[in-house]
């Protein structure tokens, strides 16, 4: 049970002068329950890739399989797929439309054909999950702060109880505090529900401490697909494609260069601290 991409290719504006290749021969297996960071520079194809996963875009070559079924077969129920593979877009402004927060979150379950009671129950649970307090339920979603809007947008997708949750740049445009809040929230959703989560971002720092696997996209191709520590070992190559490893990785590498035998695979500040302490204790 997983998502499988088999030699997937995608071309923008096919047949015109503006024709560009967004994805080239992408092969991926995304097993159930994994927490994945999908990273790439602007225009690397990461947004196109996630839209292929829930059938919003159709590949020009290759196949996408969900639980063993080709999602681009003519008789495949794409509407049902979209409730199972939930995608939260970058800007909450693109999806909020109802008079109040609560009805907006009900929109997804309502489209699934659930009865009113079930819709409301799911909306309530989802809003609680993302930490939106009762007092906001009957406010207009347009009056909320940026961080709150994003929570409501995530709740709107969570209410469909997806098996896979994809978040496209959920931290864009938020201040550091708001960013950490959202990332912690995603981590806690993952802990509670155990669903597959794909976090799309252009910032390594953001995803490093949370995810168990990082897929790096560059110019429509998968460049690295490995655990964070192993991906960040390629700090130099990452820089060449406009990405960067976390700050602590650089510090540890510099220490190593100076002749201090420190382990360089740490990706969070805490791990780096432990690595340095280890050396100091030995010394």
């Amino acid at each position, binding site marked *: 049970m997983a998502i499988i991409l088999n030699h997937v290719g995608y071309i923008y*504006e096919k047949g015109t002068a503006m024709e560009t290749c967004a994805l080239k021969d992408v092969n991926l297996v995304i097993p159930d329950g994994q927490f994945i960071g999908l990273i790439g520079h602007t225009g690397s194809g990461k947004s196109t890739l996630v839209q292929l996963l829930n059938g919003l875009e159709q590949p020009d070559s290759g196949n996408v399989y969900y639980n063993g079924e080709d999602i681009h077969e003519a008789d495949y129920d794409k*509407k049902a797929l*979209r*409730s199972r593979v939930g995608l*939260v*877009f970058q800007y909450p402004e*693109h*999806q909020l439309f109802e008079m109040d927060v609560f009805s907006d979150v009900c*929109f997804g379950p309502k489209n*699934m054909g659930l009865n009113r009671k079930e819709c409301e129950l799911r909306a309530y649970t989802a809003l609680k999950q993302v930490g939106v307090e009762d007092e906001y339920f009957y406010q207009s979603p347009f009056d909320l702060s940026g961080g709150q809007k994003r929570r409501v947008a995530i709740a709107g997708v969570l209410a469909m109880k997806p098996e896979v949750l994809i978040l496209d740049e959920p931290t864009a445009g938020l201040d550091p505090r708001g960013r950490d809040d959202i990332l912690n929230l995603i981590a806690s959703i993952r802990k509670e529900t155990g669903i597959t989560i794909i976090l799309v971002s252009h910032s390594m720092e953001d995803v490093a401490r949370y995810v168990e696997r990082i897929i790096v996209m560059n110019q429509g191709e998968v460049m690295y697909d490995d655990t964070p520590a192993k991906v960040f070992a390629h700090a130099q190559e990452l820089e060449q494609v406009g990405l960067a490893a976390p700050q602590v990785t650089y510090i540890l590498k510099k220490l190593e260069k100076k002749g201090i035998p420190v382990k360089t695979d740490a990706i969070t500040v805490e791990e780096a601290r432990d690595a340095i302490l280890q050396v100091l204790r030995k010394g």
Partner: protein
Amino acid sequence: MLREITLGQYYQTDSVIHRLDPRVKLVATMLFIASLFIVDNWIGYLLGGGFLFGIIKLSKVPFRFMVKGMKSLAMLLLIALIFNLFLTPGEPLLSFWGLSITKEGVIQASMMTIRLVFLIIGSSIMTLTTTPNHLTDGLEKLLSPLKIFHVPVHETAMMMSIALRFIPILLEETDKIMKAQMARGADFESGSLIRKVRAMVPLLVPLFLSAFRRANDLAMAMEARCYRGGEHRTKMKPLVYRKEDRIAYLILVVYLTASICLGRIFL
């Protein structure tokens, strides 16, 4: 799905037609359309077709691209064709169900269709080869004599260029909003008409809000740069006629004279 609308969208490439002064293209388009309504025989249409063909070749815009854009107007053409075919009185050729196709109807319908097709292609060449900014620049310059009568030419041109500038942005935004709502299970295609209209609400509300937000931001940004309208405003790239533009005018005069002479008077 919305990216498929190509009618009148600027096609980026480098050609003689692309480099022409927008005023030339505006005048040429108007005169070409006028010529289509002046002529009323086959030679005139042949001449118009030849002229159009030459321009298409010169513009380096693939013909396929133009035809793709015309698909959306196929329905309109079909209706015009059918009305002319059946409703023109004259010598009947074929009749059924109380309707009859007349000889005059066939001629009228085919001429009308050719006229409309030429008209659409002709005017889309203008927008295909001219950026919206250039187009409004040209329009502003052409209409500037009207300023004497206190017609707000500059303001109108500015509004037009802003409106045109926002079309692709709003189209892209519509695409994104549609996708965001489809990801939540929205269905824009199936169901009865009433259901379809109701399904538009989740699309239109975010779209309108975003349009207002953008307009507001733009107004603020323009004010921050001390924009105050047309008085004493100079252009960064003023429009100046060059040699090619004069040649183009000459060709245009020759074409117009020929189409009046051949298409109307002598035959």
